[in-house]
C-alpha cells in the first residue's frame, strides 16, 4: 500500500496543463511531417508548413500552440494499492486552476451551459477515474478544444447497419464537419457499449498515441481503411482542398447489447494534445 496526499496530483496536473498546451506530442509532429512529405496539393503544402512552424514557435517560447487551450480533461488510473488522503476533486481542480493561471492559458469554461458565466479559472476539469491493479497513479491531462468537439457526433445504429453503416456514419461526420474542426484532424471512434460508453470510448481513442494501431488486426485494418477513405474526400488542410484531411483514425470498442450498434465519433484537430505522468 502506498500513501499519497492528493496534493501530489495538484502539482502534477498544473505542470501537465502547461506542457500539454505548449508542446505538441512527438507522434503528432511525426504525423504532420509525414503528411507534408506526401501531400500533392500546393495550397495544402503551404498550410502544413505554417502548422509545423507554429508548433515550433510554441515549443520554443512556451506559448500555447492554439488559443483554445480547451476544457481540461483529466484521466486518472488509480492503483487499488494506493491510499489517497484528501479531496480528490478539489485537488484536481486546484491543479487546473494553477496550471491555467501560471501558464497564461485561456479560461474557456462557463459555469452553466445556459446562463454562461465564465468560471474564470478554467475549472472544473472533466474528470475520469478508473481503478486498476497496482500501487501507482497514471494521470493524463488532455486539453480539448471545442472547434473540433462541436463537430463530433453519435449514432445509435442498428445491428443490420453493420460495418458498412459504421463507415458511412464516420465518413459523413468528417465530410459534414469540413473546414470547421481545423483539419487535418484526428478521428476518435467509440463502438459498442451503451450511449454514454460509446462517447467515452471515442474520447479515450483520442488519448492513444497515433504511433499505435488497434491491437486487434480486424480493427487495425478498419482504422487504416477509414483513414484512406477520409483522405480521399479532398477536404484537405483547413478545408482548402488536398489529401491531408485526417492524420489518424483510432477505434476503441467494447461489447454491446444484442439490439444495438452505438457509434460515436469524437473529432480532434491537428493540435491533439495530451500528456501523461506516472506517480
Amino acid at each position, binding site marked *: 500500500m502506498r500513501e499519497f496526499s492528493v496534493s501530489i496530483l495538484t502539482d502534477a496536473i498544473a505542470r501537465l496543463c502547461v506542457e500539454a498546451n505548449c508542446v505538441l506530442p512527438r507522434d503528432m509532429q511525426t504525423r504532420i511531417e509525414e503528411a507534408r512529405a506526401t501531400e*500533392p*496539393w500546393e*495550397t*495544402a503544402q503551404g*498550410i502544413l508548413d*505554417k*502548422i509545423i*512552424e*507554429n*508548433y515550433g*514557435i*510554441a515549443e520554443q*517560447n512556451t*506559448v*500555447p*500552440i*492554439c*488559443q*483554445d*487551450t480547451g476544457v481540461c480533461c483529466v484521466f486518472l488510473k488509480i492503483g487499488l494499492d494506493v491510499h489517497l488522503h484528501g479531496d480528490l476533486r478539489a485537488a484536481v481542480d486546484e491543479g487546473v486552476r494553477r496550471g491555467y493561471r501560471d501558464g*497564461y*492559458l*485561456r*479560461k*474557456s469554461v462557463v459555469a452553466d451551459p445556459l446562463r*454562461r458565466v*465564465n468560471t*474564470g479559472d478554467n475549472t472544473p476539469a472533466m474528470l475520469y477515474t478508473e481503478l486498476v491493479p497496482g500501487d501507482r497513479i497514471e494521470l493524463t491531462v488532455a486539453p480539448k478544444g471545442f*472547434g473540433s468537439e*462541436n463537430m463530433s457526433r453519435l449514432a445509435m445504429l442498428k445491428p443490420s447497419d453493420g460495418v458498412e453503416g459504421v463507415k458511412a456514419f464516420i465518413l459523413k461526420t468528417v465530410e459534414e464537419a*469540413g*473546414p*470547421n*474542426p*481545423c483539419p487535418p484532424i484526428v478521428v476518435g471512434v467509440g463502438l459498442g457499449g451503451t450511449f454514454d460508453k460509446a462517447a467515452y470510448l471515442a474520447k479515450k481513442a483520442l488519448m492513444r498515441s497515433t504511433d499505435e494501431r488497434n491491437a486487434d488486426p480486424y480493427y487495425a485494418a478498419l482504422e487504416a481503411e477509414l483513414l484512406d477513405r477520409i483522405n480521399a474526400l*479532398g*477536404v*484537405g488542410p*483547413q*478545408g*482548402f*482542398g*488536398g*489529401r491531408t484531411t485526417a492524420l489518424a483514425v483510432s477505434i476503441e470498442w467494447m461489447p454491446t447489447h444484442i439490439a444495438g450498434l452505438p457509434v460515436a465519433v469524437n473529432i480532434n*484537430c*491537428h*493540435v491533439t494534445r495530451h500528456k501523461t505522468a506516472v506517480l
Partner: protein
Amino acid sequence: MEKHIQLPITREIARTIKSGDACLLSGVIYTARDAAHKRLCELADAGKPLPFDIENATIYYVGPTPAKPGQVIGSAGPTTSYRMDAYSPTLIALGETGMIGKGKRSPEVVEAMKRYGAVYFAAIGGAGALLSSCIKEAEIVCYEDLGAEAVRRLRVEDLPVVCVIDSDGNNLYESGRSAYLRSQN
C-alpha cells in the same frame, strides 16, 4: 503571390478581393466572439450606438490567451465562424466589411455579403502562436467582464489570411476541394 491590404476595407475595396486570394492585412481590426456579437446586436436592435465604429470595420473571431509579461497578446488564432452567423448580417448591414475566422458560413451571411459588399477571410485554425506575431498592439475596447471574449482593438501587420467567400458569393471551401479532386482523376 499575396495581396497586401491596408485596412480599413471599404465596400469598394471589398468588391475587389476574390475568393482564393491570399492576403496580408495591415491596420486596425476588432476582436469579437459569440458573447460580444450578442451584445453588439442587442445594442443595434435597440437603436443604440456600438462601442466602436463598425463602418468599414473588420472583425476577427478570436479569444486570445492572456499575454505573458513582455508580450502584446497571447496565442491568437481564429475560432469557428458559424457561431457568429446569427449576428453577422446585422453587423454587415451596419457597415462591417471584413470578417476573419475559419469554417463555413450560412446562406444568410453570404446573402448579406453580396448585398452590401463584404468579404470573409480565414486564418489558419490552430496556428495561434504564429498569428500572434503579426499583432503589434492590443487594447480592450469593451466587455472586459467577458475575459478572453472581450472586444479588443488590434493593430496588425501582414496578418496572413485567405479570402474564402467573396462579395459575389464564390467559396474556396467548395472550389478548392473540387479543384483538388479533379486533379486526382
